[in-house]
């Protein structure tokens, strides 16, 4: 099931952390398409969160298309493969952009980075 820790010292708001954790679970297929998420109340109790906070997470996820809420039966994961792929790509892209930024700030050139990439990939 879902398991994640909330980092109290992080600058990221709680609801953001929870949202991201759920998204990660969906992307990594720990939560599959059609799976029933815990009710707002249950999740709130597990994480010791305010139900309003959990509700905010679910609404947000619903808005962005990750889950679908049905009256009376709760929220289900709505994960289409194509969408997930796009999402995964964008996440990796963001991570890579971050890496590039750091590398450039340390003084590496484009050629240095390309050489590094090739060396690492050939080992895989």
């Amino acid at each position: 099931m879902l398991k994640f820790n909330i980092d109290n010292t992080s600058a990221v708001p709680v609801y953001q952390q929870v949202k991201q954790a759920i998204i990660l679970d969906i992307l990594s297929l720990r939560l599959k398409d059609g799976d029933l998420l815990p009710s707002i109340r249950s999740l709130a109790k597990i994480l010791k969160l305010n139900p309003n906070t959990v509700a905010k997470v679910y609404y947000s996820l619903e808005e962005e298309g990750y889950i679908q809420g049905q009256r009376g039966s709760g929220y289900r994961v709505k994960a289409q493969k194509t969408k997930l792929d796009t999402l995964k790509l964008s996440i990796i892209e963001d991570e890579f952009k971050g890496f590039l930024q750091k590398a450039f700030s340390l003084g590496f050139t484009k050629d240095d980075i390309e050489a590094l990439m090739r060396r690492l990939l050939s080992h895989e």
Partner: protein
Amino acid sequence: MNKEIIQVNELCLDYGKRKVLDNVSVRFEQGKTVLIAGNNGGGKSSLLKCLAGVLFPDSGDIRIDESVSKEKIGFISDRMSLFEDFTLARGIEFHSGMFKVKPADFDRSLLDRLKLDMGMKIRDLSMGERAVYHLSLLLSQKPEILLVDEIIHTIDPYLRELFLDALIGLIDDLNTSVIMVNHTFTDMGRLPERVLIMENGGFIFDEQSEDLTGKMKKIVTDKEIKGDIPVVFKNETPIYNEYYVYPYTDELAAGTGYEFQDVDLTQVVKSFIGGYYAKKRI
């Protein structure tokens, strides 16, 4: 967004020369959970008592939304005032009768865990048992407004969690507005959505929980810091100093070049309280 359930206007209260409440004004939204923290004697309990109608301010007024009847307001203070000569059973019967709770609706889940004899007198309960008992009474009222003053720490962690679960259920079912006075954050899980800090009868801090860690940071250094930085509190240790900064903005980091570290919520509250005591020493 949500409707206002309690409106506090310019509340003033003096105990002799001491200003317990100094022109306090605040609005509470329906369905939100609020934590009021601060140093001892800052006025938190008095404010709560005024909200409960148990204390009258010298001036100012409190307006509670007219849709909330008195039966739907639950209040417990650190004195846990009850009629001590009542047996537990009589206490339940009395409270249910007064607050129009049907006996079938009384939720005994918390009480049952304590395995108490219903025939014993309330005065014979330990502090923790009493807190659980009183909270059970309040929960059974299905309150729309719940006012809780500094008793959470008297309950053991196991029961505390049960209580929080019950509270979560309440908020989910009834959209209960909860105002809790407490020193620490950790007892409460992540329930409070808004944190108010009171000092000298007034509010010095009022933020949404989710903005808290973004708005408060600390600088850890062994030197004195320079520049126009809003330091709330300085914690001195033999090795380094911690400067708690509020409100934090990104421009501040860029402008001063210091490294700002994240703080957790308990540190937020502690730093304000520490700041108060530091001021007093000066």
